[in-house]
């Protein structure tokens, strides 16, 4: 649906790499172009007309985010450069300050590098203990396995809501409830879920939620950290400078501004924040439940078409999202993606930044189809047709 809003799709391209980044609708590009051509100005510093327009759009994006993910206040919405920065802020701004040696943090082996490496670094620095919760036979995380992994020392659970290779949807409402009962901090990487389904910050009792703008129709270079206000008040910024301080003196005294401003030192990505606001309005206009339902149906359709092909191994046919990882038997993932590119079908090959998942699925690299609402059954038919007739793959790629 809504294919006509996306310039790149007019070029006969089938874009199945939405887990990496999504296309941008015209309204997002228009809003950013307007900032650059009509009201270019810095925020919170000018008394002229253009500056006031920019301020209003920038500040209002926090309200749009608040409504979109249902947090308590716009003070809980911090603009970052993306999910990676958001998680690093949580780990090094909050966790480094409050966790102690021996405290346990629960992750899984299907997490993205950005939700593993900061924790590994923190373990190296202060001696926290990282534990990886077991995945089931379909590489998904069950609530039972979460419960089994919790000990008296568990202080944090940090997981993706939807993982980026397997696409399993974790039951964050149930896990959030467990965290509430056991006084565990709950960090959710929403990079692959917030763009595709309704995520309710309050209902899931999330303490910190991270996501990226560019994976949800927005521009690159902007993302969001949503944190409970009390936690954000206690969290230290990683960057210090203009815009985030109330005063500083020659005797080394200083005072920081309140949340969320204290986390946004320097000139933020203004055009990008405005573009993100437009992207979220666009998504809300379609409806997140509608998007999720559409993608699941499209994935089921794709699976039904590929299941009979004995030449193809599917790794996650039952996961409840628009992500399908597979390999053509005997063909390295990258060759398959180069082959598909020959037919203008864009997919991703690799380990998708989940290098530890090989411990579970036994292979390192896969081809990943990640769908969005602008993909259609016709796109799927073309992909399936090309995969069903790939005997000449090496003739094409070599």
């Amino acid at each position, binding site marked *: 649906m809504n294919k006509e809003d996306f310039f790149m799709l007019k070029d006969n391209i089938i874009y199945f790499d939405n887990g990496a980044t999504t296309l941008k609708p015209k309204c997002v590009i228009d809003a950013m172009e307007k900032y650059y051509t009509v009201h270019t100005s810095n925020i919170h510093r000018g008394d002229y007309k253009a500056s006031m327009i920019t301020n209003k759009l920038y500040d209002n994006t926090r309200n749009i985010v608040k409504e979109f993910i249902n947090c308590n206040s716009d003070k809980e919405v911090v603009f970052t450069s993306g999910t990676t920065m958001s998680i690093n802020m949580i780990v090094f701004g909050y966790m480094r300050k409050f966790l102690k040696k021996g405290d346990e943090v629960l992750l899984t082996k299907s997490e993205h590098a950005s939700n593993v490496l900061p924790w590994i670094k923190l373990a190296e620095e202060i001696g926290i203990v990282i534990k990886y919760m077991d995945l089931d036979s379909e590489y998904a995380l069950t609530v039972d396995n979460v419960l089994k992994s919790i000990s008296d020392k568990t202080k944090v659970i940090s997981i993706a809501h939807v993982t980026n290779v397997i696409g399993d949807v974790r039951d964050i409402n149930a896990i959030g409830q467990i965290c509430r009962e056991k006084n565990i901090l709950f960090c959710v990487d929403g990079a692959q879920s917030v763009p595709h389904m309704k995520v309710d910050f309050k209902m899931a009792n999330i303490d910190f939620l991270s996501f990226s703008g560019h994976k949800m129709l927005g521009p690159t270079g902007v993302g969001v950290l949503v944190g409970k206000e009390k936690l954000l008040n206690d969290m230290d910024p990683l960057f210090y400078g203009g815009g985030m301080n109330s005063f500083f003196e020659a005797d080394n005294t200083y005072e920081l501004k309140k949340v969320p401003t204290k986390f946004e030192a320097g000139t933020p990505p203004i055009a990008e924040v405005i573009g993100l606001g437009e992207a979220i309005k666009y998504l809300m206009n379609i409806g997140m439940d509608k998007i999720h339902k559409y993608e699941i149906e499209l994935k089921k359709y794709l699976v039904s078409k590929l299941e009979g092909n004995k030449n193809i191994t599917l790794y996650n046919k039952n996961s409840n999202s628009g992500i399908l990882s597979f390999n053509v038997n005997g063909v390295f993932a*990258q*060759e398959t993606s180069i082959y598909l590119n020959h037919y203008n079908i864009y997919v991703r090959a690799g380990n998708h930044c989940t290098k530890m998942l090989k411990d579970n699925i036994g292979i390192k690299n896969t081809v990943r189809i990640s769908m969005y609402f602008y993909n259609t059954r016709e796109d799927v038919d073309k992909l399936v047709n090309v995969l069903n007739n790939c005997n000449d793959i*090496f*003739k094409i790629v*070599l």
Partner: protein
Amino acid sequence: MDSNLKREIILDNYQEPMNRGLFDDDSYIRVKANSENCIDNLEFMIKVDNDKIVDIRFDGEACAISTSATSIMIKSLIGKSIKDVKNILTNYKKMINEEEFDSEILGQLNVYDEICMQPNRKNCALIPSQAIDEFLAKIEKM
């Protein structure tokens, strides 16, 4: 060289590469090679004796181009003196980077003389030379 023949040589070396598989042996020097642009990730073990390369083995995950290039490179370098190895590497890199090169000494490695037409594959073809370069830097320090 005819493009069908090139494809055949590449495919043969991809599907049945020379000396795939590593083992523990301290007399070998180990190096790794990977690409920032793609997912190739290979590890090499190389044995040098009396200024000659006497064995090269490799393992890891890599595409058809880097696997085959590694296989052909191994065949080309075993038995060669360090001086000859450097000469082959220099000319191989020149060929991949579209500079003037001596095709005579490259033998079967000439199958990649048109890889520049697929710019994203150039790095794949350079994976084995990246590893051998690192190996050469290591032995020079020894």
